[in-house]
């Protein structure tokens, strides 16, 4: 190793340390922003120092970086917060394809490689390819460009198994003697792209948070594999951090839905449970804006339970306005957020933060449930399955066992709903028929605005 290479590698150690510090600072909203900057500094340092290496092709590098920066910067500033899942899906895919292209370029340049390097070239190209095409399908589903329903057909599992088998055979042939098997390599890329599509297409829209978490993990692992290909530590460390992060998030999402990863990946949830039309019946007690106003006005503590319906109705700003009025009235206000509220992990928190809800009012499910009995009023807005008590006591319910925000234990529950139609999973909600539940029908945004008006009139 000459002195330049030594210098570069020592700097990579520093970069890795900065990534680690950055992630550590992400453990609190107070330091998170600085943490992101620290991490970005680590990246900048690594990029700059890499450019010191001799004999690299500056022309294409600089042109590529200018184009990439422009696209990335504009996209980052234009994206709506509601569209974050789509953006993350796209970025997962870009990370994957970059690793695939790197493996390809390396192999094209140096086909005479050992079996081990051949194997990691396969891993990098395969994981990268699956991540790319899988993420494009996830992006299509999230943005509504293709149907978000689970697309299932007969023999799907067998088809997927065959595709995977083809990948393994190509991998074996390829890594035995990489130099002589350019064809097998192209086959690997092709199979990877096909497998990405066929493995994501059967997964329904409601399960997308799991899928993008998983693809997030893959994009890190692809970078890791690429690190093995070029023998670069910083790629391995950074890729492993991302891989671990994606796996943890995937796990959290699965737990919050009380399902195993295998079940999410292979069962096509959205397509199988529509038959659950029966379920709890009974009389619901509707309430007018005025009724709800009197309930809220008299409450000492109010917990809002927002679901994705809130963001669809673009009601987060009026909800915050109502929250402020309640606080002025001496009421303690907080927002209880279920892990799967929104369309990706933590999505609802970002949407509320955008509406200027301070983060100390955002509480997690596990923190609010133990003190639910002392809450005066829970206001459920655009959430359904995550507050369905059937998950606790009805063993025949498809969501039985799923952890929920136990709003039914509050003194009064107000459910904002457009009509009595069942939610995402197609299950009628037992909560609506509880004696302490009042239904406040109407469009979420208009309903909240009516309450805000009631409060303002009374001043």
């Amino acid at each position, binding site marked *: 190793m000459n002195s330049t290479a030594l210098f570069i590698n020592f700097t990579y150690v520093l970069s890795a340390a900065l990534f680690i510090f950055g992630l550590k600072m*992400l453990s609190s909203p107070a330091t998170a922003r600085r943490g*992101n900057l620290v991490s970005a500094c680590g990246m900048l340092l690594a990029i700059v120092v890499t450019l010191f290496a001799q004999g690299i092709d500056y022309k294409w590098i600089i042109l590529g970086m200018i184009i990439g920066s422009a696209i990335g910067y504009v996209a980052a500033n234009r994206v709506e917060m509601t569209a974050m899942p789509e953006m993350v899906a796209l970025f997962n895919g870009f990370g994957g394809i970059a690793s695939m292209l790197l493996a390809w370029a390396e192999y094209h340049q140096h086909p005479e490689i050992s079996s081990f390097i051949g194997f990691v070239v396969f891993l990098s190209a395969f994981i990268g390819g699956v991540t790319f095409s899988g993420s494009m399908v996830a992006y299509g589903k999230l943005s509504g460009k293709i149907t978000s329903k689970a697309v299932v057909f007969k023999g799907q599992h067998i088809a997927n198994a065959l595709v995977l088998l083809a990948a393994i055979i190509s991998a074996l042939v390829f890594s035995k003697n990489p130099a002589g098997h350019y064809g097998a390599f192209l086959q690997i890329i092709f199979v990877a792209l096909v497998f990405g599509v066929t493995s994501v297409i059967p997964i329904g829209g409601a399960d997308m948070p799991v899928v993008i978490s998983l693809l997030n993990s893959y994009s*890190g692992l692809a970078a890791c594999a690429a690190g093995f290909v070029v023998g670069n530590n910083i790629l391995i460390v950074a890729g492993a951090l991302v891989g671990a992060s994606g796996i943890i998030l995937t796990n959290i999402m699965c737990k919050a839905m009380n399902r195993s990863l295998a079940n999410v990946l292979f069962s096509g949830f959205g397509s199988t449970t529509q038959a659950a039309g029966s379920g709890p019946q009974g009389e619901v007690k509707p309430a007018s804006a005025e009724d709800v106003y009197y309930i809220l006005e008299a409450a000492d503590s109010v917990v809002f339970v927002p679901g994705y319906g809130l963001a669809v109705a673009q009601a987060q700003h009026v909800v915050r306005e109502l929250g402020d009025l309640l606080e002025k009235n001496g009421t303690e206000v907080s927002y209880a957020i279920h892990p799967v509220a929104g369309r990706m992990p933590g999505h609802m928190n970002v949407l509320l933060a955008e509406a200027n809800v301070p983060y100390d009012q955002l509480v997690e499910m596990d923190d609010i449930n133990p003190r639910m009995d002392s809450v005066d009023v829970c206001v459920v807005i655009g959430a359904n399955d995550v507050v369905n008590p059937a998950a606790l006591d009805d063993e025949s319910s498809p969501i039985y066992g799923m952890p929920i925000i136990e709003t039914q234990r509050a003194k009064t529950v107000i459910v904002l709903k457009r009509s009595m139609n069942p939610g995402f999973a197609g299950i009628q909600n037992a909560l609506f028929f509880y004696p302490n539940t009042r239904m406040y029908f109407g469009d979420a945004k208009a309903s909240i605005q009516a309450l805000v008006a009631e409060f303002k009139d009374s001043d």
Partner: protein
Amino acid sequence: MEAIYLTFVFVLAIFLGFELISKVPSTLHTPLMSGSNAISGITLIGVLASLKADNLKFATFLGFLAVIFATINVVGGYAVTNRMLEMFKKKDEGGSK
């Protein structure tokens, strides 16, 4: 021998990752994901080092594409994460007016 050494680094980094990420509160999981998008753009470093001036034309073309994609991730990922985290305010910082 290098394979062993790299695998060693990989395994340790995975464990470190689990330790670090499990401390991130669920409030910040979306910025965590977009931030890790940016970090997975680390592939850029590998691409830069492998894009040599005397490369074959086709390899240069692949590398060029890889530079574009990886840079989108790095720049876009950090920028959008910063934009999101900027919105997380404590109450006394004027979170609610």
